[in-house]
């Protein structure tokens, strides 16, 4: 015959097991709920990667002509994705032939592309910078940078440093405004010192 003490322990154990099961059920349910919410949030995010013009805080939604303008989502969602900027890898889009932007509109303009990588070694503790001319000259003309922003002779541009770039000088003319932003350190600082 079980004693009174034994009966009370088994009752307590039973209570504990019930509580444990209830706790696990609760956890399971709430995790499922969280998962569903997160998945739907992800779906919403995928759709609003590019805000519609009427909601971008710049365009006047009462302008009837807004309907005639191309929506960024329609054009940009088909291009190679990126995590920053327009969420488009523009260099890849051009290389893969997904876009074919005109290189000139005036007859007689000389379109030049230069395939030359420049290593900038004085980068302190950061990996060295590799500047690829090819990707830049596919988009830009030599005169856009030379000689008023960068000297043509390697290593002779005075005052080129990260503080100036963050202030919008040198590379910062484009990177941080229209080309991939300065948060992407490793895209430029890509050559590890031996």
């Amino acid at each position: 015959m079980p004693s009174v003490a034994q009966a009370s322990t088994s009752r307590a154990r039973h209570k504990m097991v019930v509580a444990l099961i209830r706790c696990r059920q609760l956890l399971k349910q709430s995790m499922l709920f969280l998962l569903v919410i997160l998945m739907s949030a992800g779906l919403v995010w995928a759709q609003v990667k590019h805000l519609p013009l009427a909601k971008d805080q710049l365009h006047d939604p009462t302008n009837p002509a807004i309907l005639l303008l191309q929506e960024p989502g329609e054009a940009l969602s088909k291009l190679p994705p990126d995590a920053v900027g327009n969420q488009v890898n523009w260099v890849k889009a051009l290389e893969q032939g997904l876009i074919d932007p005109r290189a000139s509109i005036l007859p007689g303009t000389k379109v030049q592309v230069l395939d030359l990588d420049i290593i900038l070694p004085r980068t302190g503790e950061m990996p060295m910078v590799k500047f690829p001319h090819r990707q830049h000259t596919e988009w830009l003309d030599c005169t856009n940078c030379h000689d008023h922003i960068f000297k043509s002779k390697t290593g002779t541009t005075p005052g080129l440093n990260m503080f100036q770039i963050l202030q919008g000088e040198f590379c910062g003319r484009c990177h941080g405004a229209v080309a991939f932003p300065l948060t992407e350190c490793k895209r430029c600082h890509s050559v590890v010192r031996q």
Partner: protein
Amino acid sequence: MTAMRVICGLFAIWLAMLCMPSHAEYGDVVLNRRAEKEGVRPVIFPHWFHRIRFRCKVCHSELGFQMRAGSNDVRMSDIIDGKFCGMCHNDRIAWGPANCDLCHSGKRGLPSGINGGDSTAGPGRW
């Protein structure tokens, strides 16, 4: 149970809000030095739209646009005369200058400058 659900819901909403873009496209430029004073909406220039169709060098080399928002003093009369935007916006390559609302499409009161997040201290300075 309900409290847990509410907390989960709030957390998910916060996460979703964190993920959603709250700004215009990267590189969108507002031009409002004269527009509103002259009684029209500010101009919104989308870099993304033009970049799909033209390389940077077309506008920033052939057309003579300086690569610094605010440093190009473009007047409507220049455009009508075929300079700056008017090199293409002439009813031949792109819509002509009579289609006011297509370019002058910004909200009233917007300051001039570059938009779209991610920008650092520099290029956007007006």
